């Protein structure tokens, strides 16, 4: 039994199995091909942000600006494509997202402002910029984007769009980085205790700033992917995502103050969050129950992880 508890994703797998069983028992259509396709088609972008945020949280920092960066990057992308062309604009926007991450990291690590406050400010600034640039209107992609759209967000395999496969690829790559590279090892170390990590010679600033950059980069990438997938970008796109992705990480076993968690756990956490909406509607509860359910799940997950931690030791 202790061995099963040691599986890091045991908690989130149990949560998914239990909730899926309840949804299926209430309405068997929950596990129908169409519904599974719908869930997988919508999980990609949230999942990409969630795994990036989980990576950062493991190293002991927060990023509340991801939802705004997610909305801001495609707006900039749309604005600069006519000047630069699609591919250069894509690179410039991803570079911009990396710059935002670097700035978050710099203010947190070098100016010593808690990341919670730095990224809270970022959340407001970038959302404000979105509203300023768009003047509150939505943008829709035009035919010149279609070839690019078909590559990044077309439905090529089993009726599932490519964003989902991007999400899987990002999950695999980040899992390998976290578990099999010095960067990952040191990310766990600085999240576990940054003072001790510094004592043993880890460059805490370098590791954490890299993780801020990674996190913002993935938020920007996800924003452009969603823009391509749904054709439209609204000024409010991504609002509230910051909390949903933190919830996905926590439900997936990421410790709020760092040192613990897995990328697969956060990926499954985002799959869980995306499934809840559809499951509740099929149960007849309606979308309004979503937040209540997520809130209760977060509390239950934390209680369960505390129990698992004790059981392991």
């Amino acid at each position, binding site marked *: 039994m202790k061995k099963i508890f040691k599986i890091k994703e045991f908690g989130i797998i149990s949560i998914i199995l239990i909730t899926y069983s309840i949804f299926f028992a209430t309405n068997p259509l929950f596990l129908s091909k169409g519904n599974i396709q719908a869930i997988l088609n919508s999980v990609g972008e949230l999942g990409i942000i969630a795994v990036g945020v989980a990576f950062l949280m493991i190293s002991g920092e927060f990023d509340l600006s991801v939802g705004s960066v997610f909305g801001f990057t495609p707006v900039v992308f749309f604005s600069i494509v006519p000047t630069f062309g699609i591919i250069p604009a894509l690179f410039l926007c991803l570079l911009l997202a990396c710059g935002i991450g670097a700035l978050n990291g710099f203010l947190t690590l070098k100016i010593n402002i808690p990341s919670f406050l730095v990224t809270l400010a970022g959340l407001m600034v970038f959302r404000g910029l979105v509203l300023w640039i768009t003047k509150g209107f939505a943008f829709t992609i035009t035919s010149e984007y279609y070839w690019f759209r078909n590559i990044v967000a077309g439905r090529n395999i089993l009726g599932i769009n490519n964003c989902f496969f991007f999400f899987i690829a990002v999950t695999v790559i980040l899992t390998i*980085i976290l578990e*099999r*590279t*010095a*960067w990952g*090892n*040191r990310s*766990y*170390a600085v*999240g*576990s*205790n940054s*003072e*001790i*990590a*510094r*004592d*043993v*010679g*880890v*460059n805490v600033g370098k590791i954490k700033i890299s993780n801020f950059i990674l996190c913002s980069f993935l938020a920007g990438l996800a924003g452009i992917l969603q823009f391509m997938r749904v054709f439209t970008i609204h000024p409010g796109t991504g609002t509230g995502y910051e909390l949903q992705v933190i919830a996905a990480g926590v439900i997936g076993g990421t*410790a709020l103050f760092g*040192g*613990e968690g897995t990328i697969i756990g956060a990926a499954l956490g985002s799959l869980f969050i995306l499934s809840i909406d559809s499951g509740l509607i099929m149960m007849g509860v309606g979308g309004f129950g979503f937040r209540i359910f997520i809130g209760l799940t977060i509390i239950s997950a934390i209680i369960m992880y505390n129990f698992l931690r004790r059981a*392991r*030791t």
Partner: protein
Amino acid sequence: MEINEKKLVEMKNIWKSYGEVQALRGVNFDVRYNEIIGLVGDNGAGKSTLIKTLIGIEDFSSGEIYFEGKKLQHINANLARKIGIETIHQRGNALEHLSVFRNIFINREIKKKLFWIDIKKMVEESKKALRNIRLQFDVFKNINELSGGERKGIAIARALYFKSKLIIMDEPTNDLSVTEAEKLIQISQKLKEEEISIIWISHNILDVYRVCDRIKLIDRGKDIADYEKEKITVDELREKIISAVRWRTSA
């Protein structure tokens, strides 16, 4: 093993202040090869500050530090480890959420190709490093599953594996059971046989007297005295520390 009179560490006239407070006032301190030196003094004497300047956690205002005869210019925690100084801090050196083998190799991971770390080799080498100090436990265990003594053992295993020349132990027996403290003292003697010098910082005079070859007393940031163990009894040592404090409080 004979103590080599040559100096492994030499700190000359070290001054350090925190704003208005003078933490170190021209301290001279040295460590010889194959020696266990005790660093004693009351709370606030400057023991930890002196050590922090040696390993680069704190800057010092003036003075010179030599390691194996070479002057250290810009020392930091990473460089200290590279030149062979391992510190076991009072607050602990082990990262709670990491497994034993990841702790042993933190920041010095064994690499395969490009960026990849060689987990298999790190696991094997960790087992070897622990066996070397007669410790045997699952290297996949997280640190928070281990006792205080086992955690200290990991830091020592790490120091031995990476061929450290000096281990600094800050209050090493503080959170240990009697048996674990005894084991640590034995391990320290073994380290000396392996030609590793130790700075043993402690309030526990009995432990210090038992384990150390030489004892340095500092108080209020000044070095007060330097005793070869054979030239002082434990009671005299205790009296010296108390009288230093008494002199300070009466002054």
